[in-house]
């Protein structure tokens, strides 16, 4: 037995046991539900738990397995889904008052794919409202807490998914990443999080925040699980016009503990001002480990446009958001204010009471950047800077197989610490958002601790280089034991 309790299992461990008929999906699902009952009062990672649906599904899977059917790696395995991904018949709130009672009439493509593999959806996870935030404190319902220290944030916006995986409330989870929303909480909770190449995973059924930046990605207990989930969710989807028709490999094929000869660059701009010394030291040690493992490290890489990425991102993302969120008018779905005398007042009041402060702030920012007289100075300028950032990455990847940086410049911060200072909160994403601007993939993996607070390492590569990123991540993981540490929740 690789673990004392079934809920502690990884996807690949649980799959082996299911395949050998040593456990049933119902037992595994009950174990996860028991764990949720134990710790959820403290962690608060979930918005909705669908115990009955999950148990019924697990039973169905068990009958299917009994009938001697072949199973795939996600079959019968319980998962939690970020509440920004539409689940047919299960409330999908975006952690917003405006969608508090929204029940989607359809599944997102990623959910359809999970269901094809007979995954067991146990519930929906908390997030910053509409995925806007870096701490999960901007949920309209309640903040999620970091399992490693309950007085600290789990990161965001996929903080619920990351905290749930760290606390063993799910065997794995799905999140979404617009500027770091999978990777930054993965780093802060010491789990693995991948932001795939833009277009690799379908966005159909992902409630839109910033359409040119959003991607769905897995949050898992180890790198092997990340590859297994990617095998299921990646692939072209005609229902997403920005989906890319690119062959999907078996991502587990490249999970070999050998990185000899791989060229890894260390961009110095990601180690400058604002990066905590403990984070810098942990990364230094992790990079030394990669060198020991045979990688060729170049410490002298420079990406000079990095310092403009934050400003460009916080113009582009809110601009796209202000357009995407125009659909919440209180007519077709969601909250609708009844105490209003005409159409315009209904819309204004619906949005006033339905949206929280960060969502309003970004709608305002985006509307301003797109408004007459400011469009060229802000929006178009940011788009041009986006071109330059993308070019800089393209050039770097002509020389290097991957670039390595911290995922978050800081360790998990205290609840409330940055809530009233939006600019400070935005800086939490400074290492992750350039990746979304360039549309490239990046993975965050556990790379150490300071005072029992997690530190994450980010590995990025050129478009569709997920296999190389997973290989580097796997080699590092096999040579270290960070991913095996579990938080004591108290």
């Amino acid at each position, binding site marked *: 037995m690789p673990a004392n309790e079934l809920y502690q299992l990884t996807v690949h461990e649980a799959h082996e046991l299911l395949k050998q008929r040593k456990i049933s999906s119902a037992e595994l699902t009950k174990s996860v539900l028991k764990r949720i009952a134990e710790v959820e009062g403290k962690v608060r990672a979930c918005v909705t738990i669908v115990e009955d649906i999950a148990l019924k599904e697990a039973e169905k899977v068990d009958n299917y397995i009994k009938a001697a059917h072949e199973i795939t790696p996600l079959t019968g395995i319980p998962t939690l889904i970020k509440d920004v991904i539409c689940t047919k018949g299960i409330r999908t709130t975006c952690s917003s008052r405006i969608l508090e009672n929204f029940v989607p009439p359809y599944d997102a493509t990623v959910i359809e794919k999970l269901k094809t593999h007979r995954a067991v959806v146990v519930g929906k996870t908390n997030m910053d409202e509409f995925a806007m935030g870096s701490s999960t404190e901007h949920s309209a319902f309640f903040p999620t807490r970091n399992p490693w220290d309950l007085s600290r944030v789990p990161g965001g916006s996929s903080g619920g998914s990351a905290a749930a995986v760290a606390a063993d409330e799910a065997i794995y989870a799905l999140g979404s990443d617009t500027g770091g929303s999978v990777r930054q909480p993965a780093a802060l909770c010491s789990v693995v999080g991948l932001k795939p190449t833009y*277009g690799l995973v379908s966005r159909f059924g992902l409630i839109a925040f910033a359409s040119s930046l959003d991607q769905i990605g897995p949050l898992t207990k180890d790198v092997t699980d990340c590859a297994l989930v990617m095998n299921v969710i990646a692939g072209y989807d005609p229902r997403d016009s920005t989906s*890319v028709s690119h062959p999907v490999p078996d991502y587990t094929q490249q999970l070999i503990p050998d990185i000899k000869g791989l060229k890894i660059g260390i961009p110095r701009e990601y180690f400058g001002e604002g990066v905590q010394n403990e984070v810098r030291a942990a990364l230094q040690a992790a990079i030394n480990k990669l060198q020991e493992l045979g990688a060729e490290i170049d410490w002298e890489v420079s990406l000079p446009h990095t310092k403009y990425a934050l400003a460009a991102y916080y*113009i582009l993302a809110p601009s796209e958001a202000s357009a995407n969120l125009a659909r919440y008018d209180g007519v077709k779905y969601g909250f609708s204010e009844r105490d209003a005398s005409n*159409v315009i007042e209904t819309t204004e009041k619906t949005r006033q009471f339905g949206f929280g402060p960060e969502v309003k702030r970004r709608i305002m920012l985006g*509307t301003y950047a797109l*408004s007459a007289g400011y469009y060229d100075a802000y929006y178009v*300028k940011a788009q041009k800077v986006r071109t330059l950032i993308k070019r800089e990455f393209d050039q770097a990847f002509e020389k290097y197989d991957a670039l390595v940086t911290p995922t978050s410049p800081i360790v998990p911060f205290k609840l409330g610490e940055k809530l009233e200072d939006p600019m400070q909160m935005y800086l939490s994403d400074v290492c992750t958002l350039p990746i979304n601007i360039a*549309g*490239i993939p990046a993975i965050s993996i556990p790379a150490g601790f300071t005072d029992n607070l997690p530190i994450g390492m980010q590995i990025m590569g050129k478009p569709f280089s997920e296999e190389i990123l997973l290989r580097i991540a796997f080699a590092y993981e096999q040579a270290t034991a960070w991913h095996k540490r579990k938080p004591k929740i108290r």
Partner: protein
Amino acid sequence: MKLSYEQVRHIAWLARLGLSEEEVEKFSLQLSNILENFEILKEVDTTNVPPATHTIPLKNVFRKDKVAESYSQTEILSNAPRQAEKCFKVQAILE
């Protein structure tokens, strides 16, 4: 770059976003602070740099126009805050 009370009200109007007096005050300060941080982009020489709308080389994505199953009226209306005669119900646009 300081955003005035009137500017904040104007942007909120464009976004059809109702704001309380306190919110207008707060946003006037916070948005001004954020915009100040954006000034850094002026340093970047973007002469002859084309704007990027997407990071993947896709354009004009077409598909065959074919008949397929769609959602039923009931499903589509299932989340409607107000409905009448199997339609979304809105307030009168014209007086």
